[in-house]
């Protein structure tokens, strides 16, 4: 394939081959769908004029006072229909709370049932029985639907950072924010949003499942991390934390074997399961194989190396020895070759969020 033409279309040799002509034909065919969308009409910004800057301190003071009054009013006075759900909006501190809406039944915030809407403050718990479902507006960055039979605590909530803890049950998150602004704790793993939509379920013992529908989620416990892409799932287990991510469209035999590998404490059975995983993996399952490097025992890394190399060639300079000692740069380079985004991106988002380090 002529990568130069595919790269920028600028180098078309005389007597271009069939492949280039094919690309040109595809360009001509698909070019009709090129964007011609007009620029949108933008809403007025909250801060847009220099004159406003001049009185900004006054406005800020007024806003703070107003928020304090509103917070007190919400917490104490207005909640006849909804019930008292705690103090929210601690202006000047971290706590701003989140709006909760009852979708089905009567979700509770701590002991108080919500009729329609309420607010959950940091430290409070949203509880749904089996007939209830709730929607949590995560500031302006997304929303979380909490299914029945669930308990969700609000751990932190401030501009640019929101953290929930799912003690049990299921939540569905859709987040449109820079990576790292939305985090969900469970007892066996921490799910950090990397710009995505996902479903997370957990039982009271800490056994759970993360399924990602768009974007990526980082799933972590004590330094053991899984990066779960769209279309993939990852289990999490008490004590051991995140399992190995796998695509949901992988073969049943592959998924069953991976489950045995992740959950079985018997080393002989784990090795047998690993055999099946390595032989039934598709090229697309390279992301699973890559994660296995840090999960198999050291003597088995060579087998994983061969299996991954058969599906995605090891980049130049990435040696069996480097992988055997889990050399970071070698692992990074192979990750980059998987076509899933590169490691510089994975790191850059975290540097912007010191709380996550």
């Amino acid at each position, binding site marked *: 394939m002529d990568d130069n033409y595919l790269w920028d279309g600028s180098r078309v040799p005389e007597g271009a081959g069939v492949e280039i002509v094919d690309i040109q034909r595809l360009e001509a065919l698909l070019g009709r769908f090129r964007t011609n969308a007009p620029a*949108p009409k933008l809403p007025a910004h909250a801060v847009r004029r220099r004159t406003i800057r001049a009185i900004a301190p006054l406005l800020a003071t007024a806003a703070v006072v107003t928020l304090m009054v509103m917070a007190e009013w919400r917490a104490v006075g207005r909640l006849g229909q909804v019930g008292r759900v705690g103090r929210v909006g601690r202006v000047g501190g971290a706590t701003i709370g989140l709006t909760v809406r009852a979708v089905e039944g009567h979700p509770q915030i701590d002991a108080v049932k919500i009729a329609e809407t309420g607010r959950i403050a940091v430290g409070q718990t949203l509880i749904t029985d089996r007939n209830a479902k709730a929607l949590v507006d995560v500031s302006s960055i997304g929303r979380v639907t909490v299914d029945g039979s669930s308990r969700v605590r609000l751990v932190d909530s401030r501009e640019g950072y929101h953290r929930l803890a799912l003690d049990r049950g299921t939540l569905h998150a859709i987040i449109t924010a820079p990576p790292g602004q939305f985090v969900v704790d469970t007892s066996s793993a921490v799910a950090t949003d990397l710009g995505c939509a996902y479903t997370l379920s957990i039982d009271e013992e800490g056994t759970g499942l993360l399924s990602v529908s768009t974007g990526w989620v980082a799933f972590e416990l004590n330094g053991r991390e899984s990066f779960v892409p769209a279309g993939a799932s990852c289990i999490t287990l008490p004590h051991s934390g995140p399992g190995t991510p796998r695509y949901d469209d992988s073969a049943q035999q592959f998924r069953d074997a991976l489950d045995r590998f992740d959950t079985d404490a018997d080393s002989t059975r784990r090795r047998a399961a690993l055999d099946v995983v390595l032989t039934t993996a598709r090229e697309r399952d390279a992301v699973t194989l890559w994660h296995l490097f840090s999960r198999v025992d050291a003597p088995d890394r060579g087998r994983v190396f061969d299996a991954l190399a058969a599906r995605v060639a090891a980049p130049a300079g990435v040696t069996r020895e480097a992988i055997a000692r889990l050399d970071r740069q070698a692992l990074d380079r192979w990750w980059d070759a998987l076509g899933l985004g590169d490691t510089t991106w994975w790191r850059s988002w975290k540097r912007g969020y010191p709380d996550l380090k």
Partner: protein
Amino acid sequence: MDHALELRRMPPFGPGVQPPTAVANVNAAPADLATTIRASAAGDQEAFSRLYADYVRMVHAIVLGRVPRQDVDDLVQDVFVLVYTRIRELRNPAAFGGWLAAIARNRATDHLRHKHEQVELPHDVGGGDPIEAEAIAVLDVVRKLPDAYRETLLMRLVEGMSGAEIAERTGLTPASVRVNLHRGMKLLRERLEPAGAGRRE
């Protein structure tokens, strides 16, 4: 065993510590991009219109790969309005492209969730134009490719972006974009072959 990428214990890149790939678009935003983003966050609509012009093709490609064609333009506008209202939340200007792309993907997914009864117009709606029908058929095949290939190919083949532009806008390294283009094109050829669609006559 600790995870190999070791994100949490990894020091930031600095003196003596190099990023693992040659180009790292997300590590530092060009000064003019950072300035434009700051101006947009302050309500400067002209600055935001420059961001729109620079990034609309990326967003359009992402959305086109996911939702019915008749909804694409409206959704692209929605994405940019949403971005305009939230751009002050962006802490690191260098992450703008990835952030915008994530918003576009999530907005498209959200749209599909609420419009699941909507169907794509049939291929012959364009008055029986066989070229149009073929183009739609090829687009359908591209839409079924894995995310990374689909988006990159649509940016290249539909929007006419070069590999370098795709890397700059998305924050991917040029090497990753090249891989996505190469593998995506290979996969597209394989999937077009049985139907004969998109082949040279």
